[in-house]
């Protein structure tokens, strides 16, 4: 009954509070590099890709008609080195999986290799995860990012169950208390225990860029020029290109204009914002 009482009042840590778990020192960069190497060694099998058209403006009410951010991953030049995974970890303070979960291949990485091809949340235009999220913690920004509001997440994991590509990672235990997280980037809060997390398309970079722009040009419209994601920066082959699908001048549109675009079969019908490029039209 007392346990049920805890459940009612939500004392995750029982009577003693988290302090009992103690303070642990945070891991070093090399630990993360080792984990990425491990993840690459036991990477999942590849997607089977189907052709998709170039992403267009979203139809949902309130969706922006001038911004839809996304990425295109060039399969011709990507060699699956996995530098993007590490860059993503450092940008977004992603925690280590811990030994026993790592053995099962359950990493927290937002970017995972599927048959030598990086894959992350595809930021689907009509995302199944958002449809089933009970609290609205998983929701869509007007400019096409499938965002997570971690403070609003109640950890029902319905979104994770409903993601066709399993891009969502669940924080089974407290990354800080268990000493599995290192805060590389002060701009991104470390996710707490019990919330679902996933690729945010480097939301923080977009937010900062938008604000700095709006502060100086309050009346002009911001197209996200000059912003790029950590994985795109890190890619030595420039295989990952970030940009704005609705902006003719954006590097993304320029790169993808005369390429053949693909997406995994599971999400091809869900209007993904992130596509693969292979071959020329």
């Amino acid at each position, binding site marked *: *009954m*007392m*346990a*049920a009482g*805890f*459940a*009612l*009042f*939500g*004392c*995750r*840590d*029982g009577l003693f509070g988290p302090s009992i778990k103690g303070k642990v020192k945070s891991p070093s960069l090399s630990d993360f590099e080792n984990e990425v190497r491990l993840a690459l060694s036991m990477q999942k099998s590849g997607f089977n890709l189907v052709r998709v058209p170039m992403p267009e403006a979203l*139809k*949902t*009410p*309130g*969706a922006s008609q001038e911004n839809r951010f996304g990425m295109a991953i060039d399969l011709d030049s990507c060699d699956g080195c996995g530098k993007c995974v590490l860059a993503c970890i450092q940008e977004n303070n992603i925690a280590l999986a811990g030994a026993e979960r790592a053995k*099962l*291949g*359950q990493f927290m990485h937002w970017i995972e290799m599927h048959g030598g091809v990086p894959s992350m949340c595809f930021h689907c235009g009509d995302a*199944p995860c*958002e*449809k*089933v*999220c*009970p*609290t*609205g*913690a998983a*929701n*869509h*920004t*007007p400019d096409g990012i499938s965002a997570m509001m971690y*403070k*609003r*997440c*109640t*950890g*029902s*994991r*319905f979104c*994770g*169950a*409903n*993601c*066709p590509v*399993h891009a969502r990672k*669940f924080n*089974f*235990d407290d990354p800080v208390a268990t000493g599995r997280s290192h805060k590389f980037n002060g701009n991104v*809060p470390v996710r*707490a*225990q*019990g*919330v679902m997390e996933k690729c945010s398309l480097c939301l923080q970079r977009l937010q900062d860029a938008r604000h700095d722009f709006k*502060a*100086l*040009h309050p009346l002009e419209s911001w197209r996200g020029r000059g912003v790029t994601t950590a994985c795109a920066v890190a890619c030595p082959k420039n295989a990952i290109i970030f940009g704005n699908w609705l902006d003719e001048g954006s590097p993304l549109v320029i790169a993808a204009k005369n390429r053949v675009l693909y997406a995994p079969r*599971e999400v091809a019908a869900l209007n993904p914002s992130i596509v693969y490029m292979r071959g020329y039209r």
Partner: protein
Amino acid sequence: MIFRILLYAGLALLLPGLAALGYSLWEGPAAWSLDTRTFWGTPISLFVFWIGLAHAGTLISAILLALGVPLDRRTSMLAELTTLCALVVAAVFPLMHLGVIENFYMVVPFIDARGNFANVGSPLVWDFCCIAIYAILSLVFFVIHLLSDRFQALEDLRRPMAWLLFPLVLWVHTIVSLDFAVTFVPEWRGAFFPLYFIAGAIYSGLAMVNVLLVAEGCRVRMLEKLMVAGSFVMLAFWGWNFALKGDWNFSVFAFGALLPQLWWVSSFRESAVGRLLVSASVLFGLWLERFYLVMPSEPQGFGWTDMGLIAFSLGFFITLLVFLRIKLRKPIEGDVLLFGELDEKPVPVVEHHTEPLTSREFIVLRFPLLVGVLVALVYTLWAVSRPAFDSVALGVPHVVAMFFPIVALVAAFVLCIRPFWTIVPRSRFTVLASAAVIVVAAFLAGMFYAGGSSQKAVREAGADIPSETIFDGTVPDSLHARALWNARCSSCHGTDGKFNEKFIREFYPVPQKLTAARLDSIGEDSLVHVILNGRANMNPYEGRLTEADARALVRYMRSLAPETNDSAEVAP
């Protein structure tokens, strides 16, 4: 006697179970077996199992009542009691399986101070509301039944309430099935899940009631036959599931459909142990079914915590049920008992034709249903108008799922308020108690409205000090320069290059006039030098501005300075 044994058995299961529950609350979802594809695991399979039982109890008693099939009071009360206890057990699991339990209130589609609103398109929200409403109504139904032998007013309520509950139960369990049918998980695809779940619920519920009847030391042949007949129907569902997705589980088949056929052996059928075994195997088989349904992939590390949770659910249920059964001995057993041969020869029903929409139930229900529909409409419109849905395309299928439960709740309230008002004794205690209940409810509503408070961040020391420039990176353009000027220089030199009269005249000797011509003659570099290192009254900004900033400032200053020789007072 049998009850005491059951009570001890229940406690023996409950206590270790509590330990497991406490541990999984402490540890969070990591405690039980999950993996990257199985996000729910044991608790939710238990939830589906017990909620199925919870629905079956009322379903059996309400359907039979609504359809006019006579069922004796004791059996039907047992069924309803099962419902209540199973509901309490089932309610624990969705709550404890959450990652952030203290945020569970965010699932309630109820306005919150910040204007957040639950996503009414999510089956979990439907679940929460439907099950809550169902719990309230089945409790009311049970209480009415409990008191119905003393008050005719309540006895008259039973059939209308049954007609309300009958669709509600089906609806609620359908919603539970939609939790799975809606998703993209290949193992859960199935537009037939509503029927599938309902059939499973009735089947397991019949088994449970039969088990309890064995404990009561009596039997109702009709229910046994219904159970065995149910095994046929379940077979069809499993067969179709196999045809659709090719997953077939032999143990489920064996326990759920094969073993129950032992009922045909008369010696088995006649012995209490035999009946117990048959019903128990049905229950076990259906639990297995739910277990494998909820875990699409082979569960990794199915450990003692899962066992403990199972033990907890079982022990909690038994303890609760037996406790209530002992407490309510008199009202449950008090009535005339007619057991057994009810269904052998169906009583010939004289076809007396009632004009459409004129049956007694309908006349009683007419007004409450109307009110219910109105309230549900208003609620739905209000909910959809919440700002949370500015960017969500809501369709009818999203909002319709909560419609009928709300109708049923309001209708039942309108239906019951008057008879209860007439029969409730006006003792001081009841008045105070009901008032207290209402006030507590209001308090809880207030808690939900307030929502949680997010704790402040602690900023590491020194972060307050501006980095040497607030615009790091590229060489500032004119807009940056203007911002810099307004922040750093305008307090003396004025935003427009005119002096800030209030400040300068009072405290500083006025610098000499500086026209565009003079600016040009001094030259950019030396002006930058002045800005960085200071001069007579000009402060050094070395370390607070980069040279790039200073240069941009000079250019900006130049743009402020008018070409004409008079009255330009731009001064370094």
